[in-house]
């Protein structure tokens, strides 16, 4: 009983932020054992998430004032169902990628990878636990800078160019966001989300802030047409980094968008025009991203454009949440998690293929299904989730969005979602088809370690299994004390 109480009262939220920071520092100070330290930290983060989850299930949503200083002057941490799910996804995917990276990176690069990855993890955790918009700015910046540094890790020409473009885009976005924060603070004297939500009104300053913040987060999440930085960055980073970027980093800015949209800007969002605009951009992202993916000859670029398309699906929650709010909300939460699992599995598989054959040209994949069956299976299973074919987490998310769209007779969105699924099938099966055929010229093959193959495969299997787990996920999602205008609980 004592143990259980101690377990309950333990500040898991604070641990989630401090632990990776400590990990980063120790990886930097002890480069020889950085792999082990990183792996341990990553695993400990998963344990901490479990602890937090238990806490949330027992007590409902959780607030923690750091140092005892509450809002509006102090920094508060806030955890509810949505943040828990994001933290869990980060923890699990992060752990799988950590396992993968222990074998992927050679020592010289590993010394640089681990400390920065730990910083990224700290930034992600802090972001999902933040309760005020300025803290979100700080964590966004930390996230962006770590991500850029990781992208540039290999030092190749493409990687450096991609990283530079990414850096400029992310900094532009952060400053725009900060300007929005400035306007909000000036109007209401607080940066705490809950306090702001109580006082918010539709003045012109607030509209301006909404515009600035929305644009900045769209840029960070790579929503069409502000997606230009994503393919070069995700396509030329090392595979585990691409996995982190597509699966987790993008979701962080989207998470902020969701939070602020539905809590802070609630009185403003019934506007037809904005919802239509977001819907339109989402549809454009789905179509454009999928078509571009189909045209790629290199696997990692194909996967990167696939991410651009999938982000479009996420933004469809805004036009769909008007009535029947919680169905679309559940759908998008499901899509976030399954995309994180599936996309990271895909990038890790691509990493394996790159390692194996020394290249990632799709047409030359040379009977990979026979020589790297686990990797081929990982790619195929992840693809099933991305296509939204049952059984998979992607299907559940897609079904929920379709259901929401059908109930509002949004046939335009339905058609686009379905076409997106068909196009996804086209580019994924294109790759799978080539894995069965021999290449014209045989290539030298490097053996791929079992750790690398299995981490990719397990992530893909998780994406499929997610299709059967709607009950626990929706229960967790329901832990919240935010109720939006349409009566849906977030």
């Amino acid at each position, binding site marked *: 009983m004592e143990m259980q109480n101690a377990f309950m009262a333990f500040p898991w939220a604070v641990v989630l932020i401090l632990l990776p920071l400590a990990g980063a520092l120790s990886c930097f100070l002890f480069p020889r054992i950085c792999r082990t330290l990183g792996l341990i930290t990553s695993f400990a983060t998963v344990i901490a998430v479990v602890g937090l989850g238990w806490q949330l299930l027992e007590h409902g949503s959780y607030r923690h004032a750091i140092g005892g200083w509450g809002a509006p002057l102090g920094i508060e941490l806030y955890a509810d169902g949505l943040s828990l799910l994001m933290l869990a996804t980060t923890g699990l995917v992060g752990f799988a990628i950590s396992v993968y990276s222990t074998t992927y990176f050679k020592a010289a690069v590993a010394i640089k990878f681990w400390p920065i990855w730990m910083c990224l993890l700290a930034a992600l955790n802090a972001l999902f636990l933040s309760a005020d918009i300025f803290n979100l700015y700080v964590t966004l910046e930390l996230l962006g800078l770590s991500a850029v540094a990781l992208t540039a890790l290999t030092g190749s020409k493409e990687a450096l160019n991609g990283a530079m473009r990414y850096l400029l885009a992310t900094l532009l976005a952060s400053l725009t966001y900060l300007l929005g924060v400035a306007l909000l603070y000036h109007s209401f004297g607080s940066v705490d989300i809950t306090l702001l939500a109580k006082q918010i009104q539709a003045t012109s300053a607030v509209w301006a802030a909404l515009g600035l913040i929305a644009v900045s987060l769209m840029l960070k999440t790579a929503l069409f047409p502000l997606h230009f930085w994503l393919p070069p960055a995700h396509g030329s980073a090392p595979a585990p980094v691409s996995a982190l970027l597509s699966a987790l980093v993008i979701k962080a800015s989207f998470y902020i968008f969701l939070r602020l949209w539905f809590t802070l800007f609630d009185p403003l969002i019934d506007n037809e025009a904005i919802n239509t605009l977001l819907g339109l951009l989402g549809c454009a992202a789905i179509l454009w991203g999928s078509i571009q993916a189909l045209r790629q000859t290199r696997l990692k670029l194909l996967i990167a454009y696939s991410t651009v398309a999938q982000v479009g699906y996420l933004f469809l929650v805004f036009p769909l949440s008007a009535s029947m709010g919680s169905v679309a909300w559940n759908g998008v939460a499901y899509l976030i998690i399954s995309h994180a699992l599936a996309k990271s599995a895909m990038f890790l598989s691509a990493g394996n293929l790159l390692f194996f054959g020394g290249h990632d040209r799709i047409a030359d994949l040379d009977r990979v299904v026979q020589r790297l069956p686990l990797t081929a299976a990982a790619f195929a299973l992840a693809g099933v989730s991305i296509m939204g074919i049952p059984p998979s987490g992607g*299907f559940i998310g897609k079904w929920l969005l379709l259901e929401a769209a*059908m109930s509002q007779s949004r046939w335009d969105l339905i058609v686009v979602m379905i076409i997106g699924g068909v196009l996804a099938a086209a580019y994924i099966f294109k790759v799978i088809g*080539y894995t069965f055929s021999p290449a014209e010229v045989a290539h030298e093959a490097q053996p791929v370690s079992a750790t690398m193959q299995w981490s990719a495969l397990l992530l893909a299997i998780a994406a499929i299994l997610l299709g*059967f787990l*709607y009950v626990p996920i929706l229960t967790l999602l329901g832990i919240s004390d935010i109720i939006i205008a349409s009566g849906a609980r977030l």
Partner: protein
Amino acid sequence: MNWNDWIPLLVLMSSLLPGLLIFSLAEENVQTRVMLNLFGALAKLALVGLMLWGVYHGHHYETRLPLLPNLDLVLRVGPLSLLFITLSTILWLVTTVYAIGYLEDSPHRSRFFGFFSLCVTATVGVALAGNLISFLLFYELLTLATYPLIIHRGTEEARQAGKIYLRYTISGGALLLIGTVWLYSLTGSLEFTPKGFLFNIGEQHYPALIGIFALLITGLGVKAALVPLHGWLPLAMIAPAPVSALLHAVAVVKAGAFGIIRVVYDVFGVEFSAGLGVLKPLAWLAAFTIIYGSLRALFQNDLKRRLAYSTISQVSYIALGVAIAGPIATIGGVVHLVHQGLMKITLFFCAGNLAETLGIHKISEMNGVGRRMPWTMAAFTIGAFGMIGAPPIAGFISKWYLGLGALNNDQNWVIFVLAGSSLLNAAYFLPILHRAWFMPLPESWPDEHHFGNKETAWALLLPPLVTAAMALAAGLLVTLPFSPLEWAKLISVREFYQP
């Protein structure tokens, strides 16, 4: 623990688990692989037998797992599902034996049998699905599991065939998905109920329901090879013969036809569909497919292609039976599910034998083959006559009931379609038989393999003989309580006469 709730799931597992295990076997592990295959097939047969006995004694078997809010994954055993699942199980066993013989010394057998088992799992899932969402899940799984079998050989031609297959089936699946979501949002339910669950819907929704029907039938029609959605089937013949035999004559194509039966009987209800006016177009489409398939078959020289077009034609008998909307026609359509399966699989097995033993792929190469491979050609003859509709083979029974049902419902034009189709069937099968039995032997066969004194390997010879015998028995022994015909009658009674 209530065992009855888990039996359907166990039936699925009996092919899923061996399949997953087979994937991990090395190529050389022939013994283990054969053991796993046969064990899975026999276990499934045993479980199906158990369910048959159980249903006969009034037990209920249903597995429910939560899938989506308010929608469960349901596996339920009823007469229609038992019909399909028994057919699939018996034919899987037979085809496994055949495949083991056919693919001896071929590369990538572990991969092949792994996906083969996944296909059967998906087919069984389709048969057992208790609501439209579960059906959709396994239907799509079937697409995913059959694709690797089509491109198994890894050649450029196979890859192209696979690409076209996917274009059709993925698009079909998308249409099925839209129809399902639409239906769910309109009615809030997707459970398969005898006589359908739509009779309470207000009239203002009728246009929407017609749209839903069109979407569902089109989605299902892709796999059922209704014209003009049939384009993938002849190309898919590039797959090895066991694949063509089981999947394209029985499992994939039948899954589509089975889906059409389910949608018309257990979602819309036959009377309601007739009232909506959607059955007439379906009947025309089916009739057109019947004639078109037979016409195209006439002009094919490649044996498997001719059989493929014959399949396109024959499977539409099932759709026709459903669309004529009478109890007797229902019997004809449903029982043809079984009969066509038995006959067609025999024909494909024989085609595979000819290719494997003598290198024959074209009909023009078949001169006198009846004297070289008498047993194989005997089985082929039985299958062919069944297709034409000659008694006492099973095909005659289905055509008889279809014709009777059409007359009963004042749809006399169907008789002409049936008669025309029989004539065309005769036109493209009889010449083959004539060639095989009555033409002189050629100098040499294209690519002959010898099997000692036997005409071909046991594993290749027995399956067609068994299925041909079953086709004969299904026709001769129709009055026995467990014959497919009696079963079809039971299903029809449930749909039309029980409250």
